[in-house]
């Protein structure tokens, strides 16, 4: 059939001015499906490997998914913090092995700042219980001498070109404007003392400082703005009490994982404060079911778009058939049978669909390549586009198959026409 395929290709190319629009619409549909599938996969991949070995995340009572997203992914917000007293009390529970408090709220050039203890670097894990590793330098000292020290993630270092010893200033508010000068804690710069190895998680885009350092920053601030005339210089901050009263959340590890229900209950029923304990695995499951609804809706819409393109292919080819009756008569005259005519038109449709799908894949890859830096920055999700997923290929194949089937319709009509016309088409 390859001689027919060659004729089909040239025939389609000849009518490219009309067919190009069909190719474009097929390309858009394919691009949508391709991108959607990649996003689905990579978002799940990113999210599900961002935290490991943590039995409970404890915070003020709100929504479990909200607490998970904020404490691990630094996305969104929580309505309220939890008291340091509760953190201490948690640490004393007989089943608890370790507690790491977290404090969020500041940013550095759009990167979230996490206030925590040195224990964070010992206990926090991602992926399959992988610990954090330092590529350069050391963890902040967690002492009053090394107060303004920061440990930055790999992505922060790469994007900003930071190295050890770099001086950075933090700004108030998570969704920091890169140059919100009046928000900046310009009087208290930090020094980068450690750079973490890449993890492929939100850790990469986070700046880590000690809890005391965050307290020091906000000593002379009240309700989000600096006290006029009440400036406390950096080195004087040490003279004040720098233990925080309140933190955003706490990560908890237990001695026995099966004890998680008891500790969760203990947290939920803790009288002095309305707290909740969230199991990361369970909260992720809730996140998936919410995301799943959205994903399915988007997939359905993309499928419809593909269907519309396929139908337009059929319409365009059918509409052009009348003009091609002479062409079909010529083919019959040189010895092509009606089956050849059927094959020819089907192959034309396949060529057009192929062109559309290929163009769509290229468009999608290009668009995602452009969006990768933003996704990494804003959501901590790394898009891995190097190798196509089997599901992506399956979707592309489905579009091709649909195009093939859709071409059969006009091809059949052409077949009937050429049978009826014989050697003398009626035009």
């Amino acid at each position, binding site marked *: 059939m390859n001689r027919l395929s060659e004729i089909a290709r040239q025939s389609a190319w000849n009518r490219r001015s009309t067919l190009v629009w069909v190719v474009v619409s097929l390309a858009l549909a394919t691009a949508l499906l391709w991108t959607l599938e990649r996003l689905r996969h990579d978002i799940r991949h990113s999210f599900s490997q961002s935290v490991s070995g943590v039995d409970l995340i404890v915070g003020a009572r709100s929504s479990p998914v909200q607490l998970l997203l904020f404490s691990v992914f630094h996305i969104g917000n929580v309505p309220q913090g939890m008291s340091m007293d509760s953190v201490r009390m948690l640490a004393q529970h007989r089943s608890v092995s370790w507690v790491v408090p977290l404090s969020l709220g500041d940013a550095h050039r759009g990167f979230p700042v996490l206030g925590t203890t040195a224990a964070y670097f010992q206990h926090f894990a991602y*992926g399959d219980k992988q610990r954090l590793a330092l590529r350069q330098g050391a963890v902040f000292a967690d002492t009053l001498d090394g107060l303004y020290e920061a440990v930055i993630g790999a992505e922060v270092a790469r994007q900003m070109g930071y190295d050890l010893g770099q001086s950075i200033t933090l700004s108030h508010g998570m969704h920091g404007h890169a140059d919100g000068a009046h928000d900046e804690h310009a009087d208290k710069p930090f020094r980068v003392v450690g750079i973490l190895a890449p993890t492929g998680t939100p850790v990469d885009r986070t700046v880590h400082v000690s809890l005391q350092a965050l307290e020091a920053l906000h000593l002379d601030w009240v309700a989000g703005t600096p006290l006029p005339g009440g400036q406390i210089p950096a080195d004087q901050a040490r003279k004040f009490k720098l233990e925080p009263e309140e933190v955003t959340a706490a990560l908890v590890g237990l*001695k026995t*994982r*099966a004890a998680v229900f008891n500790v969760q209950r203990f947290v939920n029923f803790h009288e002095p404060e309305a707290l909740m304990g969230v199991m990361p695995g369970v909260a992720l*499951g809730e996140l998936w079911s919410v995301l799943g609804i959205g994903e399915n809706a988007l997939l359905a819409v993309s499928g419809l778009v593909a269907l519309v393109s396929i139908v337009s292919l059929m319409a365009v080819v059918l509409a052009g058939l009348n003009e091609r009756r002479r062409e079909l008569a010529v083919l019959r005259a040189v010895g092509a049978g009606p089956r050849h005519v059927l094959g020819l038109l089907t192959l034309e449709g396949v060529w057009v669909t192929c062109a559309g799908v290929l163009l769509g894949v290229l468009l999608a890859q290009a668009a995602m390549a452009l969006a990768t830096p933003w996704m990494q920055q804003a959501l901590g999700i790394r898009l891995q586009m190097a190798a196509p997923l089997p599901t992506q290929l399956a979707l592309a194949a489905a579009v091709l198959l649909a195009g093939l089937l859709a071409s059969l319709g006009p091809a059949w009509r052409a077949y009937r026409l050429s049978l009826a016309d014989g050697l003398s088409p009626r035009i």
Partner: protein
Amino acid sequence: MRWQTLAVSVLAVLGALQGAQAPAQSARETARELVPQPQPALSAEGPPQGASLPGQVRTIGWEQLIPAGWDPYKDLKALNLDALKDNDPKAEEALQKMRKMWDNAPINPLLLGQTVRLPGYVVPLEDLPEGMKEFLLVPYFGACIHSPPPPANQIVHVVLDKPAKRLRMMDVVWITGPMSATKTDSHMGVAGYRIEARQVAPYTDKKR
């Protein structure tokens, strides 16, 4: 209010203890109910507690995880609930005692080392892109949401060597693997059950 909670909790675990007498149900029906109910197909069959041929996989039910002679309900049974008033402190006291016993529920040492096959509900712990590697297996639906937590000997910490791709929270599964005890601080708390599962399969009513 308090003794209603008491009644529900008692029902829950008494039901687990007397599994054989509950009516037969399909896995789907079980999953839909929010009142904890056991799967009666899981009742003890075959050799009694403790006896098993080496190398053989033994299908067990949750009641076999409770060692003989452990009865946290001694005090409760002794109480005459009908005679109590609402908010009677004795009821509260009995409840607390029972809860404490649950927290300290011992494991059945006779099961250790045996390869068992046990059905239950999944509560995820470690979920990776490749699949779920660690989860807790509990005897009833909603163990982490509504009800008080199960006793320590009614929770199994399951670790998979190969991540399971399609597991979701509250899926009902059969797990097969050797039963062991989790290590714990000698002077704090009690040991729990742990299974390094070779096989995870969706739950069906059939035996195999």
